[in-house]
């Protein structure tokens, strides 16, 4: 029986399984990032009393994962993994609907990263990508709550402050991620723009 090597080289010299979008290494990396999002959500409890403050740290693994892989869909994949973990462990009151929330974050980060050519080592881009991800999470969260029957007027009465804090904390997390991504690129751990 003849064994067929299905591994091919992509344009950047990285190996990938023929027919697959992500290489095995990329899937492993993205899965670890997804797990890290879940772990950060569980472990880091900061009594800041401001909505969306947790976004300051859990957007970091998503952005770094996207910066490392630089393929559309990598953020969504990280979101899917973290959403599945959050659903299984029941960390959110919305249970299975967590998947929508986390996937939406990943998709938003994918779209914004794509729009900026994956220049995620730039702090301004990091801020925009992180803030967008955190705000999309807030919007999906509210949508799920409305779906469950929470009076929309209650949500409306807190959405102004919530939007501002989600934007700021998500942006701060994105800037931290950009700084880390830049250091990783300089160290040659991940590919930067033009590599």
């Amino acid at each position, binding site marked *: 029986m003849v064994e067929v090597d299905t591994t091919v080289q992509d344009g950047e010299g990285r190996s990938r399984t023929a027919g697959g979008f992500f290489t095995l290494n990329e899937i492993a990396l993205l899965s670890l990032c997804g797990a890290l999002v879940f772990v950060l959500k569980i472990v880091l409890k*900061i*009594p*800041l*009393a*401001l*909505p969306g403050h947790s976004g300051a740290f859990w957007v970091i693994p998503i952005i770094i994962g996207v910066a490392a892989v630089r393929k559309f869909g990598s953020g969504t994949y990280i979101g899917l993994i973290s959403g599945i973990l959050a659903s299984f462990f*029941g*960390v*959110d*009151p919305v*249970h299975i609907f967590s998947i929508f929330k986390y996937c939406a974050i990943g998709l938003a980060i994918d779209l*914004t990263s794509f*729009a*900026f*050519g994956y*220049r995620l080592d730039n702090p*301004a*881009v990091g801020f*925009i990508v992180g*803030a*967008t991800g955190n*705000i999309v999470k807030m919007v999906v969260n509210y949508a799920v*709550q409305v779906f*469950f*029957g*929470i*009076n929309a*007027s*209650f*949500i*409306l*009465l*807190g*959405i*102004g*402050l*919530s*939007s*501002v804090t989600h*934007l700021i904390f998500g942006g701060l997390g994105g800037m931290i991620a950009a700084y880390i991504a830049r250091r990783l690129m300089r160290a040659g751990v991940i590919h930067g723009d033009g590599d």
Partner: protein
Amino acid sequence: MDFKRRILIAGVLLAGFAVAMILAQMGGEFFFEQDTSLPVVEIKEVYTKEDFVYGPQAFRPCSPPLPVYTPAVGESVPAGDDWYFLVIPLHGVPYGGNPLLGQRGYIKVNYSFSGLSDMAVFHVIGFQDSEVKTRTNRHEGWGASWYAVLGDAAPGTSMPLTAPMPQANMFIMQISGAGVPVDADEEVVVGYPVNFKEGGGIDALHITTNTKVKKGQITRDGPTEGAIYITHTGGSTIGAAALLVACRGMQDGGFSLAIDSGFVKEEIW
């Protein structure tokens, strides 16, 4: 489009979104003012049998639901563990967080039962206004606090037409006495949105008889007239707080509960 312009446009869009949401909130505060509970709800001073809004049931809201009362070792419990609930809004909310962010203080509640049969248990429930999250007092373990009052009146034979609370986590909690229209032109149904984080929300609010003991304590034999204190040790602020008063079994027509609550400042420095 060059890179800088893309960043500028994205920044403007994000800022625009935030501004739009602030305007939406301001508009909501203007248009939905009558739907928000605390600013418009009429807080009664004396609650009667007609004000019970939930029951019969053996749990109180949380995720998962918590018991209403746990008997002491050797204590006999009536066959039917049926509790009827009053939901009584409090004047003010307790705050025990960073004194630089808010005035620290607790809520003093003076209560007086008349015609109480068997037992009533006080619990507290708090609602955040910035996020739809709910807090209540822990029932068991370290930091557990609740307050039971023993009555000696004869039990009643009927109760108002009430239904148990939904065991589902998300629902609008009706307030005792809120059926009374607060606006002469419009009947307004007011309530608190209940949404507990799974296994959470039970370590911020407490019921205590000693304000030095912030985490509170369990009291099983409180008098029919006295005072309790609602304290807060959480990081998140509470937007509104209410007492859940659960009475075991049916009450007679002579039942009444007088409640007087108010915020008491704590001087830190």
